[in-house]
């Protein structure tokens, strides 16, 4: 049996304050969740490998601190990234609006980068579809960092998209 090729991908996790960016990353990389809100300062970098059929993808995840607008994110954070996760809070519709505003800015700055929109905190809704196609034509995945629902699947899906793009 031949060994699988290992490739590396840089992912960015972005979104406004308290939408659960770090919780998502912690759930994925450490399988842990905490209810205590600790704002990220600067950037937190973590890594996890995902095994797909053809390759193993080493995901180096840059969890970036809350920013007022996506335009002020330092260029060197964005540089060389293969995938972007834009997180919003399903219980706060205004955070989705903010996220959608950021999409066009990213499409200009990172034209070949795979983008995925994530509605987090699905556990707080009574009924939530786990996946929809929004009006921007982007995939919108719903997750719960608290229960872990759909978190691994979302990262795996993005890993796949970064290889295809």
């Amino acid at each position, binding site marked *: 049996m031949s060994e699988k090729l290992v490739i*590396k991908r*840089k992912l960015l996790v972005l979104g406004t304050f308290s939408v659960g960016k770090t919780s998502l990353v912690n759930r994925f990389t450490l399988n842990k969740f905490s209810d205590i809100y600790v704002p990220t300062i600067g*950037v*937190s970098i973590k890594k996890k490998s995902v095994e797909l059929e053809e390759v193993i993808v080493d995901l*180096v995840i*840059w969890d970036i601190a809350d920013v007022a607008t996506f335009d002020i994110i330092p260029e*060197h954070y964005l540089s*060389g990234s293969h995938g972007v996760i834009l997180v919003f809070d399903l219980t706060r519709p205004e955070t989705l609006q903010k996220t959608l505003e950021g999409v066009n800015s990213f499409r200009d700055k990172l034209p070949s980068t795979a983008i995925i929109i994530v509605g987090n905190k699905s556990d707080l809704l009574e009924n939530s579809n786990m996946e929809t196609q929004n009006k921007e034509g982007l995939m919108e995945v719903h997750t719960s960092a608290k229960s872990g629902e759909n978190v691994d699947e979302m990262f795996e899906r993005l890993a796949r998209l970064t290889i295809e793009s």
Partner: protein
Amino acid sequence: MIETLYPLLGSMMKKAMLNQVRVINEKIERTANQVFTLGFWKSKFKSLITGIDHSEVYFQELYQSKIEDVFVIQKGSGLLIAKYKLEDTIADRDTIAGALEAIKGFAESVIGKNSIELEKIDYGEYNILLHNYHKFYFAVLCSGVVGNHFIQDVNEKIVNYASEYLQEIPTQVNSLNFKDNSENLQKYF
């Protein structure tokens, strides 16, 4: 987990860094002039023979400089192209490489001049020497006192490696044809 600060007070930081460098420099010179031991005179003699500055020889002998780890990192993405370790003390080199890229990017954006690149980071008892190429750079983690002579030696190793493998070093680490170059790196360090 690696966390990197992105403070906004760039000019204050630059001033503090310069001040710190001046203080350390003064401290080294003062100590070198005050200590009269056998080791001190031995190093003085070695300095005369080799022509290397006495304070550098003296402190190098007291705190032998050593390469602990070598990283080759893609500029921009911070992804690791190759690595070489003498001792397996660092758990995850991919996150270290990302953190180094974030720090480097921050420092260079604070200074704000595109042609200037960060060349050294002091981290507790360690120094991280950065040797920049167009699409990638080397980060060499060193312990002990890192003097100019040692830096020159490290740079020589890097240039020798790079001149041999410059074409082979995968500048596109994101390519599906990516081949880790760590094996070749080990021959030079």
